[in-house]
């Protein structure tokens, strides 16, 4: 079967970037003569623009000029004053990239990376290809986003492979970190406010600033389509705004083409794993502060394993949108009044989702992800269970076989035993382990400072380690999500026809949990069915799908059922929410409390990871999509009729599992 998901990290496709650094040391590395290809606008000869040139082109653009004039009238200010504000916005936003800064900072950063990671693996050939393309068309890197490390490592790699360092769209919160903010700015990051929907002036300056880099092809632009770091180890529902800004120059013909490069970044250990877990439980997010990061100094001396970067095949926007988006539809508008129509917006959204899909497809799936999945499932039987090493090895081995059957490649570096032991060392802080040959592992509770939202410290502490495991197990979930869902459907809707199943395709409900391309759910259904048929897990009997390999089917179901249980529980909790409320965030703790109660009484199967705010938000948004919750002027209101309907619908899928051995 062709490889559908995952990568095998092997030479010559993958190279260890750190091996090169280690040969002569980071100082030598950073001081090497570099030859960055200078990009240019199509049709002009290459010339590097100075920072001042960039700023000038933004402030003198007709977009900014027009908005300044409009705002002056609206605010009844002098134009000069508005212009001053535009300048200030730009000043706050702009990067201060210079190669000297990069070299100075690069040494420190590179030395730190060298200490932290065993290896940083990169698929080199693709980078050489990207480098060759970069002088002609602007390159946009769109990496998956799991940690701060993402942009630091990507920049190092660019430096190493002599690709112009990208201008990175970073959140404003990074700017406020004392040392790091300036470090980022000087190595080419620019800062965007988290929300600036109605601030026209800000919007104009920001848009023009980003587009200026693309049109003049000064340097690649890098941004995260997920908008923020994913705290849960799997892809977040993409955001569209920045992608629209990035694509606009192509749509209006200001640039001939744009090259999009999806980048998948996988880590053996995510530095922020614990922070994320606390955050997801609802402890206030610690301010992004430098000292915070440097408390992470201890991290520097710990073993963090490897980092894997897979650069995807560059996508020519011209080719991609050539058939779906007719630029001629926009040309009746003058350049200064450019507006995207709904059809264009839809296509761009679709593209955002496809980039996420590519990121997933190319992501390296680690043995650790499988191990976490296996342990979590065991915890479903007994939340305080312990794991024997030999048992773990066997279970992971079984899961490997199943994934292989589905066309998924798991990166086994040496052999399963070696890898598994290595991962257990990397993640040793999660466990207590006995010292015998077939050792026993027990998850340790993590310290929690205070009770939160009426949930006891003990439960919270226990939840932390389970959340961390969930984060890692999510690293493989994209390889089994639709397959698991389909198996659940087939089991719960006995003797339903293909069409009936397709109509009841749960994926719609779970689309925020398992990101898929809108409008292509039917396609996904057919593909998934094809895969399961080919793997001989399902079969078609008298035009109705039936389960052929009971064992595998159940395994797949069990991996996905917790997500459905989680949703169901949140739907249940929504039942007891006040009929109207101001914001979704406000009700999240109430839902957590409900889940905690269910856990304590043991009336229903609950994973402590259900306490995570992420699926709670996703489920509430799903209810919003289903109109069981509705937006009102004052906030939100619950349509209890609709809610009951959805509750019983989701109930159908889990109730039919009563006979299963598992608690879930």
């Amino acid at each position: 079967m062709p490889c559908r998901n995952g990568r095998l990290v092997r030479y010559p496709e993958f190279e260890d970037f750190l091996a090169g650094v280690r040969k002569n040391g980071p100082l030598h590395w950073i001081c090497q003569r570099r030859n960055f290809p200078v990009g240019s606008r199509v049709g002009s000869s290459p010339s590097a623009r100075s920072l001042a040139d960039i700023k000038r082109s933004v402030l003198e653009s007709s977009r900014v000029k027009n908005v300044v004039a409009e705002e002056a009238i609206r605010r009844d200010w002098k134009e000069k004053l508005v212009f001053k504000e535009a300048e200030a916005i730009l000043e706050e936003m702009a990067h201060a990239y210079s190669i000297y800064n990069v070299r100075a900072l690069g040494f420190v950063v590179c030395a730190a990376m060298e200490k932290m990671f065993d290896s940083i693996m990169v698929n080199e050939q693709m980078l050489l290809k990207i480098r060759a393309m970069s002088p002609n068309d602007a390159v946009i890197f769109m990496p998956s986003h799991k940690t701060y490390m993402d942009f630091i490592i990507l920049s190092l790699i660019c430096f190493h492979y002599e690709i112009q360092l990208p201008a990175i769209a970073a959140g404003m919160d990074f700017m406020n970190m004392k040392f790091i903010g300036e470090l980022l700015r000087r190595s080419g990051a620019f800062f965007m406010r988290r929300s600036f929907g109605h601030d026209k002036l800000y919007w104009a300056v920001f848009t023009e600033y980003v587009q200026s880099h693309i049109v003049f092809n000064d340097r690649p632009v890098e941004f995260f389509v997920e908008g923020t770091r994913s705290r849960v180890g799997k892809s977040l529902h993409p955001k569209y705004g920045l992608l629209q800004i990035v694509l606009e120059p192509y749509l209006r013909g200001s640039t001939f083409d744009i090259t999009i490069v999806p980048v998948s970044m996988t880590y053996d250990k995510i530095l922020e794993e614990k922070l994320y877990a606390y955050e997801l439980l609802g402890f206030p997010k610690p301010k992004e502060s430098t000292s915070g990061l440097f408390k992470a100094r201890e991290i520097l001396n710990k073993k963090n394993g490897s980092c894997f970067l897979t650069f995807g095949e560059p996508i020519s926007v011209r080719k991609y949108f050539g058939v779906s988006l007719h630029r001629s539809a926009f040309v009746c508008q003058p350049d200064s009044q450019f507006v995207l129509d709904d059809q264009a917006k839809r296509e761009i959204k679709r593209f955002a989702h496809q980039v996420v899909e590519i990121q997933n497809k190319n992501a390296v799936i680690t043995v650790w992800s499988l191990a976490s999945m296996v342990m979590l499932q065991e915890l479903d039987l007994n939340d305080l269970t312990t794991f024997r090493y030999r048992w773990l090895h066997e279970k992971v081995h079984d899961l490997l076989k199943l994934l292989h059957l589905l066309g998924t490649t798991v990166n086994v570096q040496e052999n399963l035993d070696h890898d598994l032991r290595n991962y257990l060392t990397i993640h040793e802080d999660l466990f207590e382990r006995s010292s015998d040959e077939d050792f026993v592992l027990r998850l340790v509770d993590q310290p929690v400072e205070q009770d939160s939202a009426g949930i006891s410290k003990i439960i919270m502490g226990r939840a932390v380690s389970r959340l961390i495991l969930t984060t890692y197990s999510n690293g493989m979930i994209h390889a089994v999500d639709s397959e698991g869902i389909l198996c659940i459907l087939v089991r719960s809707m006995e003797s339903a026809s293909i069409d009936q199943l397709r109509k009841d395709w749960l994926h719609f409900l779970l689309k925020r949990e398992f990101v898929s391309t809108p409008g292509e759910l039917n396609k996904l259904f057919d593909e998934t069915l094809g895969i399961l048929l080919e793997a001989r897990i399902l079969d078609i009997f008298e035009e109705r799908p039936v389960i052929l390999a009971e064992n595998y089917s159940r395994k797949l179901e069990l991996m996905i059922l917790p997500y459905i249980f989680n949703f169901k529980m949140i739907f249940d909790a929504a039942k007891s929410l006040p009929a109207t409320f101001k914001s979704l965030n406000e009700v999240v703790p109430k839902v957590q409390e409900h889940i905690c109660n269910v856990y304590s009484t043991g009336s229903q199967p609950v994973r402590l990871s259900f306490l995570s705010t992420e699926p709670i938000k996703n489920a509430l948004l799903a209810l919003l999509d289903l109109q069981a919750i509705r937006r009102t002027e004052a906030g939100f209101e619950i349509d209890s009729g609709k809610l009951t309907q959805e509750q019983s619908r989701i109930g159908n899928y889990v109730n039919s599992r009563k006979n299963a051995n598992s608690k879930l």
Partner: protein
Amino acid sequence: MTTSYPILEQDVPQSYRDKILKWNGWGYNDSMFTIDKAGHVTFTGDKYDISGKTMPHFRPWFESYLGIDLNHTTPAQKLSEVPIDAPVENDDIIEYLTEKKIAFSNAPRMRLIRSHGHTVHELMNLREGKVPRLPDLVVWPKSEAEITTIIEGAMSNSCVIIPIGGGTSVSNALDCPDTEKRFVISLDMALMDKILWIDRQNLTCRAQAGIVGQSLERQLNDKGFTCGHEPDSIEFSTLGGWVSTRASGMKKNKYGNIEDLVVHINFVSPKGLIQRQCQVPRISSGPDIQQIIMGSEGTLGVVSEVTLKVFPLPEVKKYGSFVFPDFECGVNFFREVARQRIQPASLRLMDNEQFVMGQALKVANNSYWDTFKSSLSKMYITKWKGFKVDEICAATCVYEGSRAEVEEQEQRLNQVAETFRGVVGGEENGKYGYRLTFAIAYLRDLGMNHGVLGESFETSVPWDKVHTLCRNVKELMRRESKNQGVQTPVLASCRVTQVYDAGACVYFYYGFNSRGLEDGLKVYDRVETAARDEIIACGGSISHHHGVGKLRKPWMLTTNGAVGIALLKAIKSELDPANVFANANLVDIIGSPHCKL
């Protein structure tokens, strides 16, 4: 010509088309670029400034820019070897024409020469002896009444009429549709070439539609007038052709395009004559029917007579030129000129590729002083002003008017140019730029002798999109050529040739070395189609003045919309229900054999 069928003729006139024009290339028989004994490119004949001169820099440019080996030749087939099929039989129409005393001929050469325009396809076919469907007969009406007679004959004898003026079309407008089974008559307007009257009071002139541009202009000049319409094809194209394609002239800034110049038209359609009762400067009588005739491309009938505005000859005609550091500066300069409405009679902007080509086409200079001067000015531009040789571009212009007017125009233009970093390049360079225009059409024949395929095509575009359109279309031509397997560098160049209040006209030049390609014409087609798609996607139009013909029909629907097309079809079916004028230009008529529906 290899042929064997009885020649039927009556009163065949001696026309310039058959005597002094090339049968398979551009222009006069005696005028062409050739390689002389020393290996330099020269221009033959005596009709142009550059005739008899040598261009020593051209060969190196040609060879390096297009990756050509001039020793490799792809000569054209001889006329005597071209196979010509017998015409469709229709004795009735021959009998009818004989009886009506209309001049006609079915001689193979007559048919062949009127079977095509000047697209690269048509010329390559002639060069390679691939003869497409030819008209079966050529007729020469001598009057409007004879046109009516011919149309009546065609209608009652199941014939098709394809009118032809100068034959300079570049849109496949003159091609006989392959699928046409009926007897096709080529209606040659060559004998209707008289000026009927000149009205000094109203400054208008009435002429027959077959009059050739340069003849019209010469006769008007002799009387102290000009018509001011000067398309690049003026030597060969006709008044009727201008009207039926919505032509545009170089000096439209001062005199206007054909639709501005036309006061009155006589149009013979199968349903009868269309003409307005009065000859007035403007009228409000419902939608303008003259506007339906203009641009009808021979699908509705024949333009027989036209009344045009004329103007007193200007006191002074002066050339000028500017050099700009890059194309964007040039475009911005043009935009500003349009904003201030100070455009001289003509204003054109060449891009860097054309600027370089123009330099390469400069004739050998014997004067030591001249070489010194031009190298000195080159130094001034590149060293002193810091212009880059691979970015520089140039504008040329023509001033016409009274001495004082011209002086003032020149001064204002120079001032504006300066604010866009332009350097005044002098009169000689300007003059040279316009001379080149006439020569450039001959250049393609030289290219074809060495395996180069090339063509020019135009569009119109709003100001804010001029620069991006030019850049993207040129880039597309380069990349798409590569995708199609062209190994050598291609010529992808453009110029802005007209300035309007709301936009500009842009001309593209595309040429490549087809040596080693399996099917060069197919490659050419794909690139041109992709280029037109890109033009449309960047906000340009289907055509500024070449018209639609058959070549650009695929973009008619997007351009005019379904309702618009239906309207055009309705007009056609009202005026020409039997589809006598079946050249299949503009739109496909349902029920006609070439229709894809």
